[in-house]
């Protein structure tokens, strides 16, 4: 079954929610006018505000329903039925989170899922744990295009995240990222972090037989450049498209969801995982299960 997706490699107007929402709506309107009309548009991590806010997350975080209403109000009727995945700082009664919203726009739509980033980057240039709370888990959900999971940036650096998403039935994993560019060694023609994202996303796709869509932020924040380089991978781990560096872009990609089943048949790594997962957990360190001592001890 073909599915048309648009990756919105996006530069927010940092700290200006209204201007950024207008920018998002403009891209959504552009996307739904394009041919073929995408079923889903994927914005990057913290698309609504920019990434490095420090204590400014207190002023910029909004509840997920407010974001949904704001997008709906601005996107217009032409966007009815379009699915949107978008990263934002989320505020609710329990705290502030680095989150991703998945929603269907229009009167018949609504919020389908909110993922809160589990692995908060707190090293080097990153300070997330200082300003936001960690999400509790990684779950897939039933979206109109197919069972989907959301990951946010460092979530994707941990192989267990893709594993949990796939085990929960996801055939599409959307990774929303804001990855500051670093590393300019000769050879690849792109910053080192973009090379690394390619390796990570390809590995997740190939290991689990899923489509992986990576939507990257662009723009500079205090000298730190988000380079872009968004990409999509098929369930064999092959790259389907590569976004440009440094620029905003609306990147169309068509995926054939039936390809996931074919990939899993050709290389049944996922079924091996499903069969072994419970046993591995039971026998893993920290499971509380006492393992039998080897013979002779």
């Amino acid at each position, binding site marked *: 079954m073909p599915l048309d997706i648009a990756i919105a490699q996006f530069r927010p107007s*940092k*700290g200006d929610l209204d201007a950024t929402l207008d920018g998002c709506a403009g891209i959504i309107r552009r996307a739904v006018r394009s041919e073929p009309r995408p079923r889903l548009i994927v914005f990057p991590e913290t698309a609504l505000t920019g990434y*490095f*806010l*420090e*204590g*400014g997350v207190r002023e910029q975080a909004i509840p997920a329903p407010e974001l949904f209403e704001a997008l709906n109000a601005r996107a217009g009727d032409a966007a009815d039925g379009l699915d949107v995945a978008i990263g934002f700082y989320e505020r609710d009664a329990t705290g502030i989170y680095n989150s991703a919203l998945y929603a269907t726009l229009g009167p018949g739509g609504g919020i389908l899922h909110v993922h809160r980033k589990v692995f908060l980057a707190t090293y080097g240039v990153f300070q997330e744990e200082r300003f936001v709370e960690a999400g509790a888990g990684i779950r897939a959900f039933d979206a109109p295009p197919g069972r989907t999971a959301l990951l946010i940036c460092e979530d994707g650096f941990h192989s267990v995240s893709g594993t949990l998403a796939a085990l929960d039935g996801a055939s599409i994993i959307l990774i929303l990222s804001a990855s500051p*560019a670093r*590393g*300019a*060694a*000769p*050879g*690849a*023609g*792109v*910053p*080192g972090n*973009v*090379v*690394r994202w*390619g*390796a990570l996303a*390809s590995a997740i796709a190939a290991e689990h037989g899923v489509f992986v869509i990576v939507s990257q932020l662009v*723009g*500079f*924040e*205090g*000298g730190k*450049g988000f*380079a872009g*380089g968004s*990409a999509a991978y098929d369930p064999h781990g092959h*790259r389907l498209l*590569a976004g440009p*560096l*440094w620029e905003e872009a609306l990147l169309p990609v068509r995926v054939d969801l039936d390809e996931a089943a074919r990939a899993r048949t050709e290389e049944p790594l996922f079924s091996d995982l499903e069969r072994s997962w419970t046993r591995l957990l039971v026998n893993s360190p920290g499971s509380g299960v006492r393992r039998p001592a080897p013979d002779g001890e």
Partner: protein
Amino acid sequence: MTGAWPPPGTAEARAPHPADRGPLDIDTDLVRDWLVQFLREEIERRRGFRRVVVGLSGGVDSALTAALCAEALGSEAVLALLLPYRTSSPRSREHALLVAGEFGIPTRTIDVTRAVDGYLDEFEPGAGGHRRGNVAARQRMIVLFDQAFKLSALPVGTGNKSERLLGYYTWHADDSPPVNPLGDLFKSQVWALARAVGVPAEVVDKPATADLIQGQTDEDDLGVAYPEADLILHHLISGRGPDDLVEAGFERKKVELVAERLESTHWKRHLPTVAMLSPTAIGEWYLRPVDY
């Protein structure tokens, strides 16, 4: 876009060796594009300026900075200020004009001698070359910022990573402009990028000098050549200790010299120390980024 991880030549993949300069190799096309985008965004988009002023000394750092600004904003949006002191080398002026001509950048010369000597001659006639150099450097910044204000332009800094890590600059002078494209490039990387961008060879290949004192060169002042210092600095700030580097074959005297400069100048890379009295102390508790 694809490639093996880690990419060939990255620091992470290498153990230190004095003959291995690979960790400092850069893709000059990538870095050039990166810095041009940086300048456009930080100057135009974030700060709303259309023009910049750059102090053009005749050295490679300011030449490269001016060239990148011209590429990012257009050469007419850049004003190169030549700010000689009476002891400055005439060759510095020649080289600055050569660079400006090469990149089509307008120039203005403002001699800072009377401003510098007005203070020193009347109040501190015995001040030596080092102090005179610092006063001249700070006077140049007074001119740079005032000209920027007059022209509704932004001053752009030119300091490189080697100077910053070695503390080899005048505090609150060279480091004061609000935007700096070269501050994360070692001197040897500046040389490589300058060649790629088309900075004239006379400027790139000459010995680096702050030109604050007649006849001085950076490498005489520092006691170690930049290519060696850069590699040692790279490994030190990547988590290797001085003993690791000596064991790997680096010369102990140079490692210790570089390490001592690095360790004794952390203060110079920070804003002034402010007494914290409250749970809303700026930059300690009240944290907002520069572009917020």
